[in-house]
């Protein structure tokens, strides 16, 4: 699905990513962990094409969508408009309302279709952002800190939610500081440190993945 080869990125003479090699198969969830400034968000932004690279190659089969840490919903559009606006441009003849309504129902916020983002809680905004990405039918979904600012109960819901939408050959890369969350959701977690992959573990095969991950902080 995604192959990254010898990826280098520097910013103001500071090396952010120093020759990253990575493969993400279809239908898998990859967790990105690491201390602040280790390059997690930069790597996601590069994969999405929001930031340029200095060296290396990125090969991605299929479409990529990005869920921002602060969601970046369009505040002047209601929930329904936020979800259907982008796909309706690409396919004007298609009515995306029914599809969006189904997604909203699946995410448990179908009653909020007419609400504006300012009237939603953090968890609801995140669901809208997820619906907005899912309606684009991405092959790879990039999530930057999806649990930041959410309470414990909501984080558990997010785990279930993301797991339920993953599959059907859709892959995910999730950057997060929340190791507990990552170990619950990811098939594989890599730790970025000083621009390199410091660790690469599979939580299901580790007795105590959180402490194992913490060693690299």
């Amino acid at each position, binding site marked *: 699905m995604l192959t990254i080869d010898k990826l280098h990125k520097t910013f103001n003479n500071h090396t952010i990513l120093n020759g990253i090699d990575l493969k993400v198969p279809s239908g898998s969830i990859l967790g990105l962990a690491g201390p602040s400034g280790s390059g997690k968000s930069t790597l996601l932004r590069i994969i999405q094409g929001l930031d340029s690279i200095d060296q290396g190659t990125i090969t991605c089969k299929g479409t990529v*969508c990005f869920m921002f840490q*602060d969601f970046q919903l369009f505040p002047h559009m209601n929930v329904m408009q936020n979800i259907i*606006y982008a796909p309706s441009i690409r396919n004007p003849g298609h009515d995306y309302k029914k599809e969006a309504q189904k997604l909203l129902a699946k995410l448990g916020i179908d009653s909020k279709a007419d609400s504006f983002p300012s009237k939603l809680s953090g968890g609801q905004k995140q669901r809208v952002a997820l619906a907005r990405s899912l309606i684009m039918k991405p092959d790879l979904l990039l999530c930057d800190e999806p649990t930041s600012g959410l309470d414990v109960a909501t984080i558990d819901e997010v785990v279930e939610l993301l797991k339920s939408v993953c599959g059907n050959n859709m892959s995910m890369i999730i950057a997060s500081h929340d190791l507990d969350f990552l170990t619950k959701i990811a098939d594989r977690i890599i730790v970025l440190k000083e621009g390199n992959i410091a660790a690469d573990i599979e939580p299901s095969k580790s007795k105590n993945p959180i402490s194992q991950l913490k060693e690299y902080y």
Partner: protein
Amino acid sequence: MEDRLMLLDNILYIGSGILFTLQLLFGGISLGLLLAIVMTILRYSSKCASYIITGYISIFRGTPVILQLSLFYFALPQIIGLNLEILTAGILTFGLNSAAYLAEILRSGINSLPKGQFEAAQTLRIPLFKTWKDVILPQAIRNSLPSLTGEMIALLKETALISTIGGLDIMRKSQGIAAEHFTYFTPLLIAGAYYYAMVLLIEFIGKKIEKNNANY
């Protein structure tokens, strides 16, 4: 009785300049807004265009409007032989001048948006034109509504300068009455009342639009 009738005549005569003033105001603000939107988009799209537009804004904000108006009305025929009607010269001058101020207002409105709004549109593969039209500008204009109302009020007051090149607006008509009767206070007071009433109306409409857009 005769005095009262004369006063009413004067009020009506000066009021007949409103149409000319409004033509200048709406012509100028429409041209200004259109140019400002184009300049704002170009400014964010190309560095070269940004330098040129910054220079344009600096010149139009840095020179008196009356000088710009005189250039269009008196100097242009001498340079390129183009004779403009007073109204056309006025709309062009006020439009070009207002565009400089409006472009700066829109720039600050856009700068107040999170950078992520552009990126969100990019990640959703929204074409650039639609990004500006449906995502960025509606938010920027909404954020700038109080300043846009202020610019419209400023422009309305500036239209009085058209009287210096013979435009028959409210100001010119009040000056005409003043010159005819050798009395300045009453005609100028009437003109002032017309301008103030229009300013209050613009303020009222501006606040109404702000209120209607406060639902998100």
